[in-house]
């Protein structure tokens, strides 16, 4: 492939520059796209907005007119937030800490361990590495329901029922997706850079952390975001594994607002969903910056 060769013989270092300036001259087509996407955006925001709006309404208000703004009759104010946070006798702050810990810890562990693993797997040609790689892919197609019972049994046997232990489960169960994505991207990194580092006497560890890791930054961010969403919103796995008397995550906590005989406190559920989205929105906006910065990191490759 001619195009690929260009990459190989490209000059050692191009001055890092933004591939696309933030705002280019807008052609007509681009203007149309902007309008189209603006319309689509409304469609995308609407459900999130509906949740926010309904979190201030009474249960009856949500059920009878889910798309209406709260009015004097259906307005419930922040009462739903208060019920949501203070029902039962498990303190809400603890569920937040627990969720945060599991998510931050799990994502951090997954990113570091699987990126290392993926790099090694794709740079080594041994049969075992190939097998591990394909096992990872297998793991992605297994429905959770299939390992549900055996996984919780294993976790119990190994005493992994704490927020610490569940990190290992997440690393193991989430390894598939992460390894798969990292290997996909490692393949697009020219091996010459690493070989050069090797000649310079940097060991694999230094090569990885010094050279490969910075190049993979956009991938780190994307994998990080995806894994964060998964772990933060995950319900069934922590529900089955965690010792719920001591630890609850936010999604588990929310479930307890559903009572028997069809009694569920919808407005409190909405309120807690809003609360649970806030940290993730902050995180996502913080990452946005890095996704854009990724352009620069990508240019280093040339």
């Amino acid at each position, binding site marked *: 492939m001619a195009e690929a060769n260009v*990459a190989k013989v490209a000059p050692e270092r191009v001055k890092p520059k933004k591939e696309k300036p933030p705002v280019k001259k*807008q052609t007509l087509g681009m203007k149309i796209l*902007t309008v189209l*996407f603006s319309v689509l955006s409304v469609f995308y925001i609407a459900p999130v907005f509906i949740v926010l709006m309904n979190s201030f309404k009474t249960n009856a208000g949500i059920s009878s007119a889910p798309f209406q703004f709260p009015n004097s009759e259906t307005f419930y104010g922040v009462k739903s937030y208060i019920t949501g946070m203070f029902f039962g006798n498990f303190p809400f702050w603890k569920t937040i800490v627990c969720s945060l810990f599991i998510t931050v810890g799990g994502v951090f562990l997954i990113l570091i361990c699987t990126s290392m693993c993926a790099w090694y797997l794709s740079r080594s040609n041994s049969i075992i*590495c190939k097998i591990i790689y394909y096992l990872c892919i297998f793991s992605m197609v297994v429905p959770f329901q299939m390992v549900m019972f055996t996984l919780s049994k294993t976790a119990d046997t190994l005493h992994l029922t704490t927020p610490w232990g569940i990190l290992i489960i997440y690393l193991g169960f989430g390894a598939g997706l992460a390894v798969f994505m990292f290997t996909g991207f490692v393949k*697009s990194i020219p091996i010459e850079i690493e070989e050069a580092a090797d000649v310079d006497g940097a060991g694999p560890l230094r090569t990885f952390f010094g050279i490969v890791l910075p190049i993979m930054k956009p991938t780190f961010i994307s994998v990080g975001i995806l894994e964060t*969403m998964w772990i933060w*919103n995950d319900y069934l796995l922590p529900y089955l594994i965690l010792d719920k008397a001591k630890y609850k995550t936010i999604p588990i906590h929310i479930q307890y607002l559903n009572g028997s005989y069809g009694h569920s406190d919808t407005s409190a559920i909405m309120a807690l969903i809003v609360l649970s989205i806030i940290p993730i929105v902050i995180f996502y906006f913080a990452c946005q910056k890095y996704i854009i910065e990724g352009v620069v990191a*990508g240019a280093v490759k040339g």
Partner: protein
Amino acid sequence: MFRKPKRKLYSLIFVLPTFAAFIIGFIYPFISGVYLSFCKFKTTSDAKFVGLDNYVKAFHDEGFLRSFWFTALFVVVSVILINLIAFFVAYALTLGIRGSNIFRTVFFMPNLIGGIILGYIWQLIFNGILQNYGTNLALDARFGFWGLIILMCWQQAGYMMIIYIAGFQSVPADLYEAARIDGADKKQVLTNVTIPMMMPSITICSFLTLTNSFKLFDQNLALTGGAPGVVSDSGSMIYQTQMMALNIYNTFYANQNSRGVGQSKAVIFFVIVVVIALAQLYLTRKKEVQQ
């Protein structure tokens, strides 16, 4: 890269942590899961080996076969739609149109909320609309099907977009410059430079959408729950919009004899997904640019 003498050491450092967790979190539970599919059991500790019994039952289950075809149709439609939309959106957003950053944030938004909740919200929306026509998601399987497709496109397109954007951004700028110097027009750049360089992302995204759609559970449960269900002439209940994962899940708790059957369905399901996913990987990987 990894020279012989230290190879073992490095493989330990790089691969072992992940692999060890992988054994605990996946391989061991998976193998015992396969074993359980040959057993009659209530909890994993009281399993009794019954041979192929569960498999025979699984293959004779009308509802399971129906869910297979429903899933297959759903997968085909959703994989194509999601990837087309996501690729196009990601491409448009890397062109530098006004508001790119905002759009990128907004399109990913659905993934901030868990699948079950999204399913319920969309159920509200669809039923709110359908109510005007005197019908409901639970009354007609077609609504359920397209409802699921819309929901999945809406949610997954944003997710895949993130991966495609990362892919677009890792295409070296020089390639475009070189193409421009060679006098390639926009369309040629797209087909000869962008798409070949994007193949790793395309592989990843089509694989992810394929497996996600196959394994779809939360949204299915929350949006339709399988409804409408019809009791067939043989007296068994056939859910019209039930996908395979939901069918398996329901089988686990259907009655005291069904847990092993559910487990064997899961194995069958797994085999199907593996075959299809590997075929897909093989086909797309072949097209990837070898560096």
